[in-house]
């Protein structure tokens, strides 16, 4: 019923800082749906107004635009634009203006939302606090310290404080200019990974190298013993400013900036290792400061920099805090979710918020496979999971599309590419012939939660691929101390499950719990029954530069343009027609190359 006065429909909208636009929908305090705009526009990390995501959430809920009563943005519009233009953090003048100017002065910011959601009232949350709220309400903690670090909020790049059911207090903050997130973004671009959100590639490259450029890189910033890193030359997220900063880094390292597509040299790999080492040290210093200052035993680690799962895993393993939670939606793709939660908490202080995240499968169903797929359907007897497990054990690669789409950067078993990690050369095969991306890129293991302690040095939950752990020494093969090339290092058989263990024996785990992802759990059980190994390669169903597929049609298009063997859509299995030539596939890939 449209316009039900007793029903409160709240949207949280994030990503207006320029990337990863997203929307989350709550009806009467219950999380109903959440999605990312990139899945609809097919532009990775799309930061345009998430109108498609909003409409898809409404469709899932069976509601119309007129039903929406409140829309909460995950950033403050005037503060954003003032600091973007003026580059003056903590300016008293900007703060005073923010208080003096009327509410409607922010109207330029929500003009699309006003058209799309005609009856909604608009609210604006602080960006970092949105991150914190999103992470807190998806964490198992009643009270916790938080550490939020990213490239920039409105006028700050790091914040710390405490949160519980009754209060959220930002106690400390660092100004937005030139912080740790900016350093990581700069060096990522310097290494030739130019598109936004490519920092994880540098993180994946780092274990191959030696950190011999640390001193050189450290000459471009100053820091202190609490992680107060700041670049010596001011930089902003504007192209001209970034270009000048890249020249500064090149001068410091003596290595010219790498162009996208150029071969990676040992120097590039060592610079990645140096950056990751600096990053981890600074995060550790920040976390120790927050621990000492708050006395809390729990830490919520969030913001874009918390997506660095290597740092998060080490932070958890080192026990700087007794417990650490790194939310899968603690970065920008979950900021709308956090903003809406912050509103619900503020507007209904007596109500205790508890949300069911459905394993973060909060998007829409895939729909039916296209008509052209019908001729390639594979008949099978017995259960789907058992049939696919047997094909995986034979070395087949499988696109797996079932149920509601995941929210966040990781495929968790709803829009996944799956393969057997024991197969020799599977990492290169998947990277080069299926994902069409750099061969060094590691894959994550999805492992039965009940078996994780028998393979890795952590038995803690990592339901959403948010932490790394190390392969147990008893599972490792002896390796040479040096390798002639990156490829030799990559291909060397390091363990029985080589494709999901990095060169330093680390792995970004997805522990698959029967209560969180029951369908995917069933597949892993079937695979273990056949092979004795409770682990599968799980990587997002896309090619390099492409957002994860959303619909069955998109899955089919991706499937026929790659060397994947089988596609599962809902309960049906299809084999690859293998009708496209390599030229056809490369032509199809070109549409994603701008964001690769």
């Amino acid at each position, binding site marked *: 019923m449209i316009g039900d006065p007793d029903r409160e429909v709240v949207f949280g909208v994030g990503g207006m800082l320029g990337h990863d636009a997203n929307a989350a929908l709550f009806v009467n305090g219950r999380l109903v749906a959440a999605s990312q705009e990139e899945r609809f526009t097919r532009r990775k990390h799309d930061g345009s107004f998430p109108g498609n995501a909003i409409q898809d959430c409404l469709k899932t809920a069976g509601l119309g635009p007129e039903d929406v009563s409140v829309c*909460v943005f995950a950033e*403050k*519009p*005037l*503060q954003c*634009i*003032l600091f973007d*233009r*003026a*580059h*003056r*953090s*903590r*300016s*008293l*003048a*900007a703060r005073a*203006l*923010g*208080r003096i*100017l009327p*509410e*409607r*002065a*922010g109207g*330029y910011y929500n003009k699309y939302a006003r058209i799309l959601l005609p009856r909604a009232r*608009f*609210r*604006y*949350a*602080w960006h970092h*606090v949105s991150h*914190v709220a999103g992470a807190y309400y998806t964490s198992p903690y009643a009270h916790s310290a938080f550490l939020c670090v990213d490239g920039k909020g409105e006028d700050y790049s*790091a*914040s*710390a*404080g405490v949160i519980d059911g009754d209060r*959220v*207090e*930002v*106690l*400390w*903050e*660092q*100004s937005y*200019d030139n912080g740790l997130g900016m350093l990581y973004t700069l060096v990522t671009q310097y290494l030739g990974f130019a598109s936004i959100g490519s920092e994880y590639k540098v993180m994946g490259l780092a274990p191959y190298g030696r950190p011999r450029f640390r001193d050189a890189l450290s000459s471009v910033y*100053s*820091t*202190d013993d*609490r*992680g*107060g*890193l*700041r670049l010596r030359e*001011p930089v902003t997220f504007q192209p001209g400013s970034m270009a000048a900063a890249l020249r500064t880094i090149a001068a410091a390292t003596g290595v010219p900036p790498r162009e996208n597509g150029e071969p990676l040299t040992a120097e590039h790999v060592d610079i990645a290792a140096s950056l990751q080492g600096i990053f981890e040290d600074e995060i550790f210093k920040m976390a120790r*400061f927050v621990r000492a200052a708050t006395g809390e035993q729990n830490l919520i680690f969030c913001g874009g920099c918390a997506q660095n799962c290597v740092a998060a895993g080490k932070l958890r393993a080192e026990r700087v805090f007794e417990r650490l939670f790194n939310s899968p939606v603690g970065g920008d793709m979950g900021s709308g979710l956090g903003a809406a939660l*912050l*509103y619900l*908490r*503020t507007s209904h202080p007596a109500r205790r918020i508890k949300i069911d995240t459905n394993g973060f499968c909060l998007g829409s169903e895939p729909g039916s496979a296209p008509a052209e797929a019908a001729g390639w359907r594979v008949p099978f007897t017995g259960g789907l999971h058992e049939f696919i497990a047997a094909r995986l054990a034979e070395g087949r690669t499988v696109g797996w599309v079932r149920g509601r789409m995941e929210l966040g950067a990781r495929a968790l078993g709803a829009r996944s590419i799956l393969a057997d990690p024991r197969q020799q050369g599977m990492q290169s095969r998947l990277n080069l012939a299926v994902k069409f991306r750099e061969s060094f890129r590691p894959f994550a293991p999805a492992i039965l939660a009940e078996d994780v302690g028998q393979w890795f040095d952590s038995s803690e939950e990592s339901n959403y691929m948010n932490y790394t752990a190390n392969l147990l020494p008893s599972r490792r093969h002896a390796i040479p101390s040096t390798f002639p090339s990156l490829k030799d290092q990559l291909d060397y058989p390091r363990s029985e499950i080589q494709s999901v263990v990095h060169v330093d024996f680390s792995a970004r785990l997805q522990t698959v719990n029967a209560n969180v992802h029951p369908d995917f759990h069933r597949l892993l059980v079937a695979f273990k029954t056949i092979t004795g190994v409770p682990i599968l390669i799980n990587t997002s169903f896309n090619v390099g530069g492409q957002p994860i597929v959303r619909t069955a049609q998109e899955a089919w298009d991706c499937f026929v343009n790659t060397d994947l063997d089988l596609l599962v859509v809902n309960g049906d299995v299809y084999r690859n027609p293998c009708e496209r030539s390599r030229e056809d596939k490369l032509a199809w890939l070109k549409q994603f190359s701008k964001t690769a």
Partner: protein
Amino acid sequence: MSERIRHLLLRVIVGLIRMTGFQAKTGWKSSQRKADDLRGM
């Protein structure tokens, strides 16, 4: 308010902030930010 006037006003405001603002120093500073504030600002 027309787009042109709005842009002009914004430029004046930004200029004022640049003149009166200062570059923040390194490191953690105590925060006065009200976390539950949902106004536009």
